[in-house]
């Protein structure tokens, strides 16, 4: 299977603080890679670096070309805080990039957007503004907004962290759907149960490096590294496993 993304020894620092430290990662097509780790371990920074929202300092990043706009056309990204455009309707949020970036005409973009909204039970929200939607609905719209561009790789950055527990599942079920459709994904999450369901590979991050990687079964249920064990123990105590 071809790799969609290959990172080797990427390095990123904010000032003197080293956030990513010679981190390597390859993501084969049609797989889901789950990043776990405590806050500040570098998960979000890694995702932002993949999308080139952050510049990479010491880097080898292949396949996604060097042209920033080119890279982003191939990647979709969904954020913890949804980041829908509040001055645009749901439909306009979704069609903006297909029209302006991919040069589709308005009718074509609208048809695609409405089909996606229908598929994820949001058809009746097309003309609403984001502030009329629940958090779960907003996040689903944000996912659809990324999907409308047919990304080769979808980056999901703790997409359920800002949602109340009742709404988490409606968002995660979309991700499960996408996974079964064969979408390639890299996601950072604290939902370990969900990670077990979708992950082809789980990576445990600590201080900007991947300390342990393997199948969900191995990393989440039989971790070898003492730091992974410690982290999962704390997650377990918090009732999240």
């Amino acid at each position: 299977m071809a790799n969609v993304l290959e990172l080797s020894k990427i390095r990123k620092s904010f000032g003197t603080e080293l956030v990513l430290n010679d981190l390597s990662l390859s993501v084969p097509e049609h797989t889901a890679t789950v990043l776990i780790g405590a806050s500040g371990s570098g998960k979000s920074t890694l995702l932002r670096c993949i999308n080139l929202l952050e510049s990479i300092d010491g880097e080898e990043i292949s396949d996604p070309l060097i042209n920033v706009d080119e890279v982003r056309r191939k990647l979709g990204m969904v954020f913890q805080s949804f980041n829908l455009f509040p001055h645009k309707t749901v439909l306009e949020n979704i069609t903006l990039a297909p029209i302006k970036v991919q040069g589709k005409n308005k009718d074509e973009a609208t048809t695609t957007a409405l089909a996606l909204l229908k598929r994820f039970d949001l058809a009746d929200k097309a003309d609403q503004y984001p502030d009329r939607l629940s958090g779960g609905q907003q996040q689903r719209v944000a996912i659809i907004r990324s999907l409308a561009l047919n990304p080769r790789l979808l980056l999901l950055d703790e997409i359920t962290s800002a949602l109340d527990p009742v709404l988490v599942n409606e968002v995660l079920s979309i991700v499960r759907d996408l996974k079964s459709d064969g979408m390639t994904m890299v996601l950072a999450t604290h939902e370990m149960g969900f990670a077990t369901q979708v992950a082809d590979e789980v990576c445990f991050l600590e201080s900007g490096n991947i300390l342990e990687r393997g199948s969900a079964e191995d990393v989440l249920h039989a971790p070898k590294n003492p730091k992974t064990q410690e982290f999962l123990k704390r997650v377990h105590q918090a009732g999240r496993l």
Partner: protein
Amino acid sequence: MSERVNSAWSPSSREIQRRGERKRISRRQGIIAAVSTTVVLGTLFIILVTSPGWEIVKTTFFDIDYGREVFPTVIAGLWINLQLTFIGGAAIGVIALGLALLRTTKSPALTPFRFLATAYVDIFRGAPLILIILLVGFGVPALQLKGISSNVIFLGTVAVVLTYSAYVAEVIRSGILSIHPSQRAAARSLGLTSGQTMRYVVLPQAIRRVVPPLLNDFVSLLKDTGLVSILGVTDAVRAAQINASRTFNYTPYVVAAVLFLLITIPMTRYTDRAIRQRTNAQSSEGAI
């Protein structure tokens, strides 16, 4: 359940008591407000009409017949102020937007222009408008450049536009800076270029956010167009001045002031309302 919803709801005796208490309190507050207003305004009125010069002031500032006589010339002058406000306002909008975009861009190629824009804003925001009007109004004709009009209305407008562009640029820039970086990140992650991000995502939100302060500046602009009278433009202020100096009766000034107020007070009320709506809208903007 549905039975309870359908049956007419009647307030409990405690609720009725609470309502009575609230009504009593608001009635008492109404009385206090009325008394206080009467006392304060009444006192001011008495001080005014019993002042030693009141009789003279009444005939020189509030001469209704003379006011009626000069009204047409003052209102003709006010028309100049309004024209100046709207034409100048349009020019200010365009220039200010350009300055604000220049000052917020990160493009290295535009660095010299960014520097110039900053210098421009510093100079024109820092110098008194009346000095700019004098310098432009008398300085530019002195250059004797070909093709540049020495029409005082034109030069006065230019001076006002130069100064207000600097003010308004800063207001727009503050709006641009107030948009959360996550909006930009979302737009960029969708593949929009930085120009498209500014045009379709940042600027529409920024402008909406600064509408109230912009309306404020618009009101100030209308008032400050009165300053071009020092160049000899026959606007409302100048028209009043001509009439006043002809007869040594100052009623034309009062007429001009009242005419300005008739326009600016509704505008400020409207601005206040826009600010209130803005604040209400912001409270439901939580998750961006």
